[in-house]
């Protein structure tokens, strides 16, 4: 129920004029979530961020599901990248320290796939954030604005049902 509410919220926010950062942060964090194992420290950290900060949850969960599926096809790439990083002699002492620290092993960083996907996730986080921001702006300009100019939309806006909905939203909507 909460998820459906959040998805509807996303649609509403997407078609409004505000909340671009919330959506972009949600998609970018969802990207990290999609790359991380479900029961890992980094996944919990992302959940906490999504929960405590005003980040669009619907965008985050939708993006997490999308990137999780996409990630399945990219496992060999993640494994190679993780293998390369984890076996770098210059980083061995750092990883040994991490390996023997409390909490850090719970990230499962020593798994090649987790390391590869995690690394890509954190590196591409700002890229995904900016890209989403641009895409949302473009969507609003190219699609939403044009759609609002159409006769169908104008007819819908002039209808009694829309007025009823608008009044309901004004009274009870957030």
């Amino acid at each position, binding site marked *: 129920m909460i998820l459906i509410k959040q998805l509807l919220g996303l649609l509403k926010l997407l078609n409004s004029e505000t909340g671009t950062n919330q959506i972009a942060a949600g998609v970018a964090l969802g990207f990290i979530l999609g790359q991380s194992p479900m029961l890992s420290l980094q996944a919990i950290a992302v959940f906490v961020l999504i*929960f405590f900060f*005003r980040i669009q949850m619907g965008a985050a969960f939708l993006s997490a599901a999308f990137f999780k599926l996409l990630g399945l096809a990219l496992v*060999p790439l993640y494994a190679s990248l993780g*293998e390369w990083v984890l076996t770098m002699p210059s980083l061995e002492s750092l990883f*040994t320290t991490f390996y*023997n620290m*409390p909490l850090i092993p719970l990230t499962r960083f020593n*798994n*090649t796939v987790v390391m590869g996907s995690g690394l890509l996730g954190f590196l591409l986080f700002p890229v995904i954030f900016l890209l989403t921001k641009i895409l949302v702006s473009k969507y609003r300009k190219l699609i939403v604005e044009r759609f609002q100019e159409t006769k169908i939309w104008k007819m819908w806006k002039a209808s009694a049902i829309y007025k009823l909905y608008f009044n309901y939203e004004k009274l009870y909507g957030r």
Partner: protein
Amino acid sequence: MEDKKNEKKKVIKKKGPIRFEAIIPFVVMVVLVGLYTKFFLDTHLRLGMEKVGGIVHGAEVDIAEVNTSFINGNFEIKGIEVTNKEQPELNLIQIGKVGMGMSWDALLRGKILIPNAGIEGIALNHKRKNVGEVYPQKAPDAQPSAAGKIASEAKNRVLDQSKEEFEGNVLGDVATVLEGTDAKDQVQNIRGDLASEKRVDELEKLLKDKEKEWAQRADQLKDKEELKALQAKLKGIKIDKKKPWEALKQAKVVTDEIKNKVNQIKNSGRDLKNDINYFKNSIAEIDNLVKKDLQDLQSRVKLPELDPASFAKKLLGNMFREKMGETMKYVDLARKYMPPPKDKSKEEPKVDVAKELSKRGRLIKFPITTGYPLFWLKEAKVSVVGEDTFSGSLTNVTTAPSFIKKPAIFEAKGDLKKENIQGINLKITMDHVTSIPKEKLEINVASVPTPARVLSKSPSAQLTLKEGRATSRFSASISGENAEVMWNSRTMKPEFDVAAKNERMTKILQSVTASLPELTLNAQAVGQLSSLKWTVNSNLGTEFSRAIKQELGNQVELAKAELKQKIDAKIGPKKEKLLGEYNKLKGKLDGLLSKNEKEADSASSDAENSAKAAAPTPANKVEEVKDDLLKKLKKKIKF
């Protein structure tokens, strides 16, 4: 107008980046959980433990206090009282304090490390303040727990193998003989088949079948047509002086064929010889069957073994067997829950590594500088309060002994005065650090009460050892599947209950038991766990053996001799006949086989000689070349 103002206010109100509407309920929940932990958790834990403990035990369990500290990782239970189900006014066990602290460093790694634990103030059978409640018992669970299953399997593994060895009623058998039944008469009345006789008949039949088979195989070896043909082929090879090597090649091929054939004949002969010799082993086995028949008949006519060791084994062996079974029960449990590392040489190959890698990735292992096993109890102190002075410690109990590289040791000593046990000194070492688990138990008790025990029970005679006091020394050293277990026990001034129908038997029982100032028991079990060699010695066995031999004279020995004679009379001639037939057949076949072998050898050497003859020697070749050159030279100079 007011509506418009409110609308404006709503639009102006901008929400910040932090989701306070989520954080505030979360913080409230955390505070509530904290308050619950601080004020109610300990009480609820105490009530829960009392309830669950009572249900599991089947009688009232009381706990005075439970203290938990989340920050320090401490857990403490005070005043545990477990009601004795049989005597509810007493506590079965009472523990003053159980305390342990867990390391947060390990907990944050998802592991349990208990650096120090203590079980203090243990008291057994102390009086309760109020009579404890005993709950109605449910029917026992038909399915044993995993640990229970392991324990019973381990116990049975040791007990079953020695069951027959310790079974029987030696005093009852003696009483039967003393009751006047003449053992010799009993022997005369034996009817029925003997296993050895049955086997001789079987072998006789088998020898007849084998005779035909062996003759057939020997005939096949005699047939040398193929060999002769090859020899003729070799002789028929003509040597072309211009191309002598062609003939040599052919000769070599035929010689190899002859050699193969000869080897074939020899191998078949050898197989036949082995088969014939193997049959002799079957005949030799008859002697073992005769021994077994003798033992069976002895037990059928209840002729007792009168040597001291047999007496000791039959009277006191079961006590040792039970102790051994109990030991193995705990050893197997320890091996299950404190597993030694797997032998790498026996490790199974991993399945489809590439597939696994593509799915989950590879785990890169870095050196462990600060790590813990899943569970590690570093040290636990145990002490008993009151008049008792019993105390000890348990160290390094872990789920991964190979990781901490230390054996688990339980050491304790002292007296349990209330239980009337003095001078307890025990040390149990469970070394599961390497792939071969080693357990060592040493339990010495200076003085311990011994319960009454029936040593022999039959309608004709009964012997019961009454309650008394004994010193006991039990040691077991188990390494992998090998064990060496010893038990020495001395019961001072033993008292017995004796009863027998026969007066002579009663007198023997009374005189032997009255003459014993102490009852000694020295038992040993050595060897592989699946086939232990048991030795049991006791002065009770020696005394009984002496007294009964004196009483019966050579009556039993004569009966045994009679029995042996009877078997020999039945089996002896048949066995001799079988052996004679076998030897006759063997002699005949041996001669034939050695003749064949000689013929094959000579055929082989003939072939080799013929091949050598066909080959031109280097000297011949030089002469031939020399003659050719001389002829050519003479033609050129027209000499």
